[in-house]
């Protein structure tokens, strides 16, 4: 069951009630049961896969942390990583590698193809595999001791708010909470429910409404003019943000209700004034994972090349980020583009800083606005290859049409579709602008006056029920 299904609306309250009825000492045991029940409901056989990755992680982290095997730590970690990555490789990358090898061999005149495998990607595999790898590496780096309780490790990797699409959490944050005192806390429950409500608004109203329009545009590129494609290009990042951001908020809110603190996954990314700032605000759990486990070791080993070592590390890290998103050339192009953006910023950082300081531009609102807009355009155009289109040639066709066919009317199915989507975007933008630039000023959910609070809840629930998309919609990050 997914968060936006009716089943989840039944499942979650029941889980919470039973959770708090359980003696405090056994609450994490119940959570483990509930998490596997949640995952089995998707597809039972994939729960076996999750259990398998959990078992591998548990065994190898215990071995790595055992002083008897101190001389073999590195080898154990390497084997652990390979075994944990095998299912992900098999389900996500096998066909791509197979096809690439076939294309290469065919080019050399050798016709030999391994059979295609057409299994559906187990939901959440990219997320829980990264969590497992992060835990193993943390044990190797002595950031944390290997957990003796198999159940705690199993809960960490299967924890139902996170298992399908993150945030990609870390063992040092989660283990102490699972083993600690999971107490009933009224304020945490209210906060959690607020985040869940806002998450549903982002997902069902903003993301799924925009998706209808964007899908119509990008599945019919040849029949739309440059103007419509441009509008689709500008809307797609908002769709992705509201989709994954909304889903993440629901996840974080569910955990909060249970008294468990999970890391923030987005921090109002469209207010970023540079791509490096953008990537500190967007999909934070993934980027911090890549920074800690890929970028830092790479940049460290290349540090003798100074700024060029950083550039190489950035390009490789974001190429891998593209690969994580999908085994397609488009995602690799997308990842490389992000790496290029950040490399250019790294190379020009000093000069830019001096220029901004000289003219005190960082104090000027218009400068910050232009920088945010420019950053948004950069990301929006890169997203043409990051899921909006299905091939690189389609992506280039979109860009070509935007610049050569920017005439004619903007396509829309009916005026109400436009009004609804724009209204939803406006509400999202208004709240985020208020939080970014006027924090602590007039609050809706946390207003001292209960009338304002309940009117806000009521307004949002009404909006969700009236204009939310309830036919299943699509969740972009399920494909990862």
């Amino acid at each position: 069951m997914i968060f936006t299904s009716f089943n989840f609306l039944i499942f979650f309250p029941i889980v919470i009630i039973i959770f708090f009825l359980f003696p405090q000492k056994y609450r994490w045991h119940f959570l483990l049961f509930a998490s596997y029940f949640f995952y089995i409901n998707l597809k039972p056989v994939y729960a076996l896969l999750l259990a398998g990755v959990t078992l591998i992680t548990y065994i190898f982290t215990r071995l790595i942390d055992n002083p008897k095997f101190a001389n073999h730590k590195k080898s154990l970690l390497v084997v652990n990583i390979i075994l944990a990555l095998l299912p992900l490789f098999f389900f996500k990358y096998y066909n791509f590698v197979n096809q690439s090898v076939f294309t290469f061999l065919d080019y050399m005149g050798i016709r030999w193809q391994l059979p295609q495998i057409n299994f559906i990607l187990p939901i959440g595999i990219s997320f829980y595999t990264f969590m497992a790898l992060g835990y193993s590496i943390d044990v190797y780096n002595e950031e944390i001791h290997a957990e003796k309780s198999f159940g705690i490790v199993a809960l960490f990797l299967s924890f139902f708010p996170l298992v399908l699409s993150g945030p990609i959490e870390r063992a040092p944050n989660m283990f102490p909470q699972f083993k600690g005192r999971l107490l009933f806390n009224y304020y945490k429950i209210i906060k959690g429910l607020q985040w869940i409500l806002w998450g549903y608004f982002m997902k069902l109203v903003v993301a799924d409404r925009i998706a209808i329009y964007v899908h119509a545009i990008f599945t019919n590129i040849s029949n739309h003019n440059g103007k419509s494609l441009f509008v689709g290009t500008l809307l797609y990042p908002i769709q992705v943000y509201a989709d994954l951001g909304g889903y993440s908020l629901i996840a974080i809110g569910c955990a909060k209700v249970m008294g468990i603190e999970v890391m923030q996954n987005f921090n109002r990314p469209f207010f970023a004034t540079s791509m490096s700032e953008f990537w500190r605000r967007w999909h934070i759990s993934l980027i911090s994972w890549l920074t800690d486990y890929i970028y830092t070791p790479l940049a460290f080993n290349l540090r003798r090349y100074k700024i060029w070592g950083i550039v190489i590390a950035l390009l490789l890290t974001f190429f891998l980020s593209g690969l994580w998103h999908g085994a397609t050339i488009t995602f690799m192009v997308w990842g490389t583009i992000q790496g290029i953006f950040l490399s250019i910023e790294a190379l020009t950082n000093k000069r830019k800083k001096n220029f901004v300081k000289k003219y005190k531009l960082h104090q000027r609102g218009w400068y910050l606005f232009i920088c945010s807009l420019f950053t948004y355009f950069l990301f929006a155009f890169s997203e043409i290859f990051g899921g909006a289109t299905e091939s690189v040639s389609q992506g280039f066709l979109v860009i070509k049409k935007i610049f050569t066919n920017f005439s004619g009317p903007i396509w829309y199915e009916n005026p109400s579709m436009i009004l609804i989507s724009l209204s939803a975007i406006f509400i999202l933008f208004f709240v985020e602008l208020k939080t970014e630039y006027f924090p602590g000023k007039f609050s809706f959910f946390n207003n001292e006056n209960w009338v304002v609070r309940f009117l806000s809840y009521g307004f949002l629930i009404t909006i969700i029920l009236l204009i939310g998309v309830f036919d299943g919609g699509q969740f972009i990050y399920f494909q990862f």
Partner: protein
Amino acid sequence: MDKEAIIDKLTNIFRDVFQDPEILLNNEMTANDVGSWDSLSHMLMIEQVETAFSFKFKLKEINKLKNVGVLIELIESKVV
């Protein structure tokens, strides 16, 4: 090299790498306290510290640098 000398040298490195001539180090200082201290400039700082103090960090040591105080202690242990 005594601690004062280490702090002086480190202050100059911080001011150069993070382009802030007014940085004053304290033990609790972290990347959150310096605007331009991010994962990119962090590695540039590490490389300059190695060059200035003539030693090499291990990756595990980098991962355990929680604040400037820990960095100063690490440098002290390396240059003694």
